[in-house]
């Protein structure tokens, strides 16, 4: 214990130097960590024999390597792409038909993910950006719209819209076609036959009923099956139950409400999953790799022992405050081909509680973590917070980090602090 205490004092002294530093990155460097995750969850990039590089991700996920673009890694010092003027559009005749096809192309934007335009085939449109149904009535110059598509940050420094041209997602010629299409959009707009088409009148998702009912949420069954793992002795001759006596519900009651938290023994912020991946093998000899079913199921079961209790993550101690500041910086950091930040979609002043395509975006200030790991009806699997992060990275065009990276743990801590005081309910059930 004294050894840990000394380390904390050292960290505390480092952090005092930047007291009240919740808004700027602290001087203390975050710890390094080598991943204990399953191979698919480590965020590795592999060089193929033919010279192509392949990103190793979960089965069914894209293997495209986004290595050219900025990531959430703390040691990725690349800056945000500079704001650039698009220059003169190429001398091609804009074709509105081609432009509309590009606008709808799911492999690119799709622009309809954020903007509503007329047409019953526009499905499902989002409303993170303005409704463009009558854009041409504003008589904006072609050159202005071209620049807006090339890099909108020239006009709107804080926009959530990606710099499509500057990042090479659309070619200059394609942007001319898009402008030609946008300049066709004149009112009046015919009323919608289906209120679900327009994201401003669409019903919000209502959920899937009682998430703790085992006949309703398959993740509950998976978590309960982990009770066998809790009391099974590992190769080291010990089980979890040998040290944590009195049954899992008594032994683990309230524990999960404090995670993620800085764990002195490992010198980093850890979620339950991260702790299990090192503490489990140390004490029982059994591997509990991060993102393995065993790790995930045991995590859910440990968290279930705190269900109904208020989340109470540490926001006060110097290491926690330093981690929170880094987590907040990650949340606001723009990454990837799309140059997006978490904050673009999940803060109330930007995309939160709006539709991104058909997806209703969560609001970080409401707390997004207290039901994780959660059953995903769309994936037929239980996902923890970090697999959710990794899934978010891919459409942003950024390589994911290891599931047990310090970056994700501190980001999860930042998100979890919005859940403080609200009751845990694990496993959740969501689309």
């Amino acid at each position: 214990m004294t050894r840990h205490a000394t380390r904390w004092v050292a960290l505390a002294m480092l952090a005092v130097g930047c007291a009240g530093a919740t808004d700027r990155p602290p001087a203390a460097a975050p710890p390094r960590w080598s991943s204990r995750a399953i191979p698919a969850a480590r965020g590795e990039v592999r060089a193929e024999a033919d010279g192509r590089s392949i990103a190793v991700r979960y089965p069914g996920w894209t293997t495209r390597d986004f290595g050219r673009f900025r990531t959430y890694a703390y040691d990725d010092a690349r800056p945000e792409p500079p704001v650039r003027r698009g220059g003169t559009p190429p001398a091609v005749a804009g074709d509105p038909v081609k432009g509309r096809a590009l606008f709808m192309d799911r492999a690119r934007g799709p622009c309809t993910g954020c903007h509503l335009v007329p047409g019953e085939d526009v499905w499902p449109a989002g409303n993170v950006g303005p409704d463009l149904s009558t854009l041409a009535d504003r008589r904006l110059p072609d050159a202005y719209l071209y620049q807006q598509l090339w890099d909108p940050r020239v006009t709107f420094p804080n926009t959530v819209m990606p710099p499509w041209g500057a990042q090479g997602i659309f070619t200059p010629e394609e942007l001319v076609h898009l402008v030609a299409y946008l300049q066709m959009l004149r009112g009046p707009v015919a009323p919608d036959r289906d209120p679900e088409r327009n994201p401003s009148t669409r019903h919000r998702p209502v959920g899937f009923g009682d998430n703790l009912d085992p006949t309703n949420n398959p993740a509950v069954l998976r978590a309960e099956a982990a009770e066998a793992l809790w009391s099974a002795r590992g190769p080291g001759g010990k089980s979890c139950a040998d040290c944590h006596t009195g049954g899992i519900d008594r032994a683990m009651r309230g524990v999960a409400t404090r995670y993620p938290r800085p764990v002195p023994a490992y010198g980093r912020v850890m979620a339950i999953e991260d702790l299990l991946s090192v503490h489990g093998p140390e004490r029982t000899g059994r591997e509990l790799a991060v993102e393995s079913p065993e790790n995930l199921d045991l995590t859910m079961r440990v968290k279930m022992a705190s269900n109904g209790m208020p989340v109470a993550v540490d926001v006060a101690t110097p290491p926690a405050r330093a981690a929170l500041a880094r987590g907040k910086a990650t949340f606001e950091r723009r990454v990837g081909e799309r140059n997006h930040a978490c904050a673009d979609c999940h803060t109330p002043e930007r995309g939160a509680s709006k539709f991104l395509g058909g997806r209703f975006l969560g609001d970080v200030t409401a707390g997004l973590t207290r039901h994780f790991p959660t059953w995903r009806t769309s994936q037929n699997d239980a996902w923890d917070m970090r697999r959710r992060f990794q899934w978010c990275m891919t459409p942003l065009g950024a390589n994911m980090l290891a599931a047990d990276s310090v970056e994700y743990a501190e980001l999860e801590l930042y998100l979890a602090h919005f859940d403080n005081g609200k009751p845990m309910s694990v496993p959740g059930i969501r689309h």
Partner: protein
Amino acid sequence: MGAGASVSDIGKVRLRLPASIKTGDVVRVRCLVIHPMERVERDKAGKIVDKKYRYIDKVTVTYLGRTIASFDTTQSVSENPFFAFTFKATDPGKLAVTFHDTHGETYEGTADIRFG
């Protein structure tokens, strides 16, 4: 199911009813049993592997000692099968849901119907 349930759990029945029931209510019961529901396996040549597959082939519901419903099921029903049905709660007493599998095992879940 991803990881799947461990073998020791096979046969565990969950039965869910509304928290409060009044006399004469039509009650919706949700029930689930942990069971692998083995599927037909084929060998490399595409021939069905000849063995006695283990799956639930009958579910019976008894209320006040009388069978009020039975379901015949096949391998097309998923692992850890879930059933829901309604019945009219006329008297207090025992409701039992029994799952029978092809290996002769039976798994039962019961609920005490009380009015309050």
